[in-house]
């Protein structure tokens, strides 16, 4: 069987530099896939030898999209190393910043980075505004901005846009591709929301900035707490924050979630066929205090879609491999070992030991795992998380889907939307806890410590659920300086290259079996990859020492 290789580079509408190469047979079915990170910066190498208290500001720059996630995780792993406990208020404020980012991130991801894989802009021009308005009522009782005059406006303006001859970012799409399945009216609804979401994401960013100072790259977290105490004590700031979240919830409940139901409706066949499904291994570390022992997300590990036997997450089972990443496993630690591309500028993948990516290969108990909103929904729902239960059940019943169906391209997006909706609920609870604290004269935002007398040699780690999945930072401190720093980001898990074991990561696995209608327009590939919300700047990290064991970082049992 002769296979044809398709190279897609750059994959746009993601953070960073990602290349995908798929090998298709004569019928256009993907038989093998390789995804590769194409940029190496070496932030961990830069962190070495620095004051541990500076790790946050520097590691924050790992990514400007998952901004704050790395900032917080780096500071947290240093706090873990020194056993510094946070004041309640500081914990809540960090969570408030993080939660606003979840919402912001998910909405931008779907509408601005992903929706054009489903929405044919040119088809929307054929829509009938009246029918559009009616159509929207199928998916929501109170659809967002649903007057037909509004749709008429959008339509007229869209036509002007096309007439002006400049489509800007809309130009050169795969318009007219058979994989676009929405009706003109459905396309128009989503375009309308695409434009609304532009305003939405700016507004929600203000919520991040209220306690973070700015976004991207907030600047209010320090080892021991947060600095935005004056904002915390200002009732107007809290009120502004709440108001922004309330507005956000409107959009999520009346546009984002209904749009997912619309997608499910249009793409039900491929969902039922499990298109874009990976190997069914899911990883979730859980987190975010809720009530008492409860957490917003439960921790747990699922193998092969077996929702009935969920294991507890055990950090000792995490390992890193670099067999096929551009690092050396033999020589001294952190050694870069770039083996270049083939002469025809394709990835070297012919042999089982050929290296082809800057992304290292994390494994859980030797297996590749998928992480992200889908993993969180599966784990939390299956473990009976009270808060999420109703959200999932409402969605499944409204769309007539089974839980397993969510393990697909469209399902991944649905899980993200469900999660966004219930995060809003959670935020309201968080804010009232903060208010309770402050009301009873607990205004502490920082735990005092004397850096001079802290342990000189120690280690720490931090695990967080962040918008794209599980993020972990590890630090080793020697003579009060960072000796080693290591990061495993969500995209590191999902976009992992193969090892000698030959196991495909989630990206690669999800591409297998995909039928590509037109190999010059591989829309199907983009759709699958985008559903994971790739973030490549996050994903690329050097491996520490000879890799494999992360035990070196583990100081305490949790």
């Amino acid at each position, binding site marked *: 069987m002769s296979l044809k290789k398709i190279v897609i580079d750059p994959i746009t509408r993601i953070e960073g530099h990602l290349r995908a190469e798929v090998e298709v047979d004569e019928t256009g079915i993907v038989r093998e896939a390789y995804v590769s990170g194409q940029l190496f910066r070496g932030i961990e190498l830069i962190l070495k030898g620095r004051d541990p208290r500076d790790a946050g500001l520097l590691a924050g720059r790992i990514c400007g999209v998952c901004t704050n996630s790395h900032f917080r995780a780096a500071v947290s792993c240093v706090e873990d190393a020194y056993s510094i406990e946070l004041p309640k208020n500081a914990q809540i404020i960090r969570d408030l910043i993080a939660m606003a980012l979840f919402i912001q991130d998910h909405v931008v991801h779907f509408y*601005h980075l992903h929706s054009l894989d489903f929405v044919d802009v040119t088809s929307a021009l054929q829509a009938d505004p009246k029918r559009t308005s009616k159509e929207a009522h199928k998916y929501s009782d109170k659809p967002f901005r649903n007057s037909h005059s509004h749709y008429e406006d959008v339509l007229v303006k869209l036509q002007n846009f096309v007439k002006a001859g400049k489509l800007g970012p809309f130009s*050169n799409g795969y318009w007219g591709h058979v994989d676009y399945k929405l009706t003109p009216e459905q396309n128009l609804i989503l375009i309308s929301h695409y434009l609304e979401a532009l305003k939405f994401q700016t507004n929600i960013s*203000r919520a991040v900035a209220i306690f973070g100072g700015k*976004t*991207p790259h907030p600047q209010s977290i320090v080892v021991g707490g947060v600095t935005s105490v004056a904002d915390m004590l200002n009732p107007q700031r809290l009120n502004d924050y709440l108001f922004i979240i309330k507005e956000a919830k409107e959009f999520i409940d009346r546009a984002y979630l209904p749009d997912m139901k619309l997608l499910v409706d249009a793409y039900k066949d491929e969902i039922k066929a499990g298109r874009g499904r990976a190997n069914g291994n899911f990883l979730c570390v859980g987190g975010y205090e809720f009530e008492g022992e409860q957490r917003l997300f439960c921790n747990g590990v699922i193998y092969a879609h077996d929702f009935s036997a969920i294991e507890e997450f055990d950090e000792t089972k995490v390992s890193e491999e670099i067999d096929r990443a551009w690092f050396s496993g033999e020589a001294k630690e952190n050694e870069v070992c770039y083996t270049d591309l083939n002469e025809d500028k394709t990835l070297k993948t012919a042999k089982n030991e050929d290296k082809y990516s800057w992304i290292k290969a994390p494994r859980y108990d030797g297996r590749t795992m998928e992480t992200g909103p889908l993993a969180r929904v599966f784990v939390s729902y299956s473990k009976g998380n009270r808060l999420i239960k109703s959200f999932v059940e409402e969605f499944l019943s409204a769309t007539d889907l089974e839980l397993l169906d969510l393990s697909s391209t469209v399902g991944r997006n649905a899980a993200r939307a469900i999660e966004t909706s219930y995060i809003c609920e959670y935020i309201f609870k968080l804010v009232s806890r903060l208010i309770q604290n402050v009301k009873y004269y607990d205004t502490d935002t920082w735990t005092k410590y004397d850096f001079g007398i802290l342990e000189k040699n120690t280690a720490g780690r931090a695990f967080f659920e962040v918008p794209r999945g599980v993020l972990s930072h590890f630090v080793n401190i020697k003579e009060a300086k960072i000796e080693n720093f290591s990061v495993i980001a969500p995209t590191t898990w999902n976009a992992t290259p193969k090892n000698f074991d030959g196991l495909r990561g989630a990206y690669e696995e999800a591409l297998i079996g995909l039928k590509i209608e037109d190999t010059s327009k591989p829309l199907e590939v983009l759709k699958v990859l985008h559903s994971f919300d790739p973030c490549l700047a996050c994903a690329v990290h050097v491996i520490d020492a000879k890799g494999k064991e992360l035990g070196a970082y583990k100081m305490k049992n949790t």
Partner: protein
Amino acid sequence: MRIVIVGGGIAAVYLANNLKKQDSALEVVILSEEKYRPYDRIHLCRLVDGAEDKEGISLVLDPRVKLELNQKINTIDKQNKKVFSDTSMFSYDKLIIATGSVPVSLFSVEGIKNAAVFRNADDCVKIKEGVGRSEFVIVGSGPIGLELLETLNEMPDVQKITLLLRGSHLYNVNLSIDAIKTIEKCYTKSGKIRISYGDEIVDKSIENGEIKLLKTKKLEIENPFVVFGVGIKPNIETFRESLACGKGILTNLFMQSEDEDIYAVGECAEIKDLGFVAGHVKECTLEADCAISHILGKETKEFKLEATIDMLKVGEFDLVDVSSPVFNSEYEKIVIASKKEKRIDEYFISDDKLSRFIGINSNVDVGYIETLINKGEDVDINYLYQNRLIGERGRLICSCEHMYHQDLVDIVKQSGIGSFLELSDFSEAGRVCGRCKMMVSNIIQDSQDLIDPDMPRKSAEDIKREKEIAEVAKRIDKFNLLHPRNELSTDNLESAMASLDIGKHEVNSWISMVTASMQLHPSFEQVVEGAVCNLNKVPIVWLELADCSGNSEAFIKSTNPAIEELIFDYISLDYHELLMSASGDQSENILEDIIKNQKGEYILIVEGAVPLAMDGKYLRIGPQGETGIELLKKCAKDAALVLAVGSCALDGGVVAAAPNPTGAVGVSEALGREDIINIPGCPTNPINIVGTLLSYIMFEELPALDKLNRPLWAYEGRVHDNCERRGHYELGEFVQEWGDAGAKKGYCLFEMGCKGPYANVNCPTMKFNSGTSWPVQAGHGCMGCTEVGFFDKFANERKYVEEQES
């Protein structure tokens, strides 16, 4: 510093006024040998005919300048830096000699009642007294002689004038015979004047200090009054002993004599390297500027020869003489003459270049001629012919300020000024060398009936601003021509904006904000709006190299974002990996298309560092696996402008922090180019990107940049100086630890390691995320992210100590 200026003419006054203007701390003293306050020699004729008194032609002197009259300087004590007159001694730190020139006479006129030179106010008094004599004899026909001739001709009490000329020409030896005839006719028409060519004084009989009879080669004149207008020479006899002199006091190009504390300016100075002695007011003021710049040590400029303009209006004829400093007699001449209009334009051409122009009753655009001579471009005869007709701006009136007739009329019409005095707020016309003062004054009077009494009058600033706006509008039009491919116009921009539900008021408020943040006057708003519309037409390529997408993210969250998104993401942002719908080959096609077909039109914005180690292979982009540096070079080559956005693009940022594992550098270094505009920040506030693009489009040039090539309008202010917590700093109220009582009250964060004192950027005023907050407001303090190497220097929460650097 005490600066002593010797001399009492226009050069001395110009020097004194400008020294004081540029540094009010200077002590400036003028030592004049005259008994009158400085006056304008150009208008001596007005004293002769009594049209003005000495007050009327006096020069305006800064009242802070100390003026000493009747001080003829006899000696200089260079060692002790002192000068002496008969009566006084003056010490100086810098001495400027501006004694001008003395007139040449064929015999001494001292003690002779009816003979004079024509150089100062006393000469005028003497000449005036001679009006009763039977005949005036003027010797020489230089500009001043001709002017006096005209003045005397107009005086009814003067009966007869003889103009005595050694040669056979009037005004200048290079004039054509026709031109000379034309001038001659003007003078001889009234019959009062006779001109004796090829003639000179051969004898005279003097009795009782009075010339009774003057004999020339051709004539005998009884009881004449003789005026010499035969020339001048530098007035430097006093200084010959103490300073090296040639024709004048020898100076370098900064007008500095051999003694480093002594300068010479004006007609008394000779620039050694050029062998040049000034003869025009314009040249004197240029020399003065050079000397001042050298003395004050600010932007020192060397003297450069430029074309000079002489204008002479005598009775019925106007004479304009524009001459190259290198004019010599080796020329060919083109004459364009009209008998009907009594107009003669004479062009002197050497090596196909125009070296001089003399026009009689000419209509030509003198400003153009001047440029032609200064630029040394080849002469286009067709243009010279077309140029013979008067332009819409009318004739050049003030050659110093380049004010044309119509310009002055416009000022009168718009501002409603009624006198020469009031003009000074609007233009210096008639005030620099003063020669055209009367003409300017007349034009103002003649235009009074054009003033509409009901019209709101404009101030000087209004008119200046209007001119600037007109300039900007013109540039925008030009820009439109540069980008004809783009079909988007103001019309469909509006509908496109409407498609994003952006109300007009939002557009307006955004434009106001951009205008204000660019430190422009509010009346620029309209132009800014125009530029915004144009911005859509500029194709923008946004490259992400070794980056974190932070700047792109910031961009889509910018203040009043919908509009900026419209501009950057929806209309003109043709290539941007984070947002474009096309991927892989298709996105590459877009890029190739822009680079190939829109050379010199597109703007390249680069985000991220450029890794250079390992042949740049730490970053590869596109189906051909191009390295970051290859792609950058390809895109930058034909870009109209390259903007390096974010700190990584400035100097490698975090990626280049020690030990810089990938050998990363900033865009400017990677390209080896110094014309890259840096807009650093981590991330950069998008308003600063937008503003920079706008200023490029409006002014067609880079905005003013600081030493890091950052636009000054955004990066000039120090964070510390504009900080909202600055008051607490002044009061010594500091946060001592995170979350303490001071932190709750918003005290100064300096003790907590705020780097505001070391950072230059507009964060305190612009803030982030629709003005929601900024790091200082969030209680953390600044980390100097706009500065070079900030990750190794400033990115921590400790007070910055200089030693940390090493």
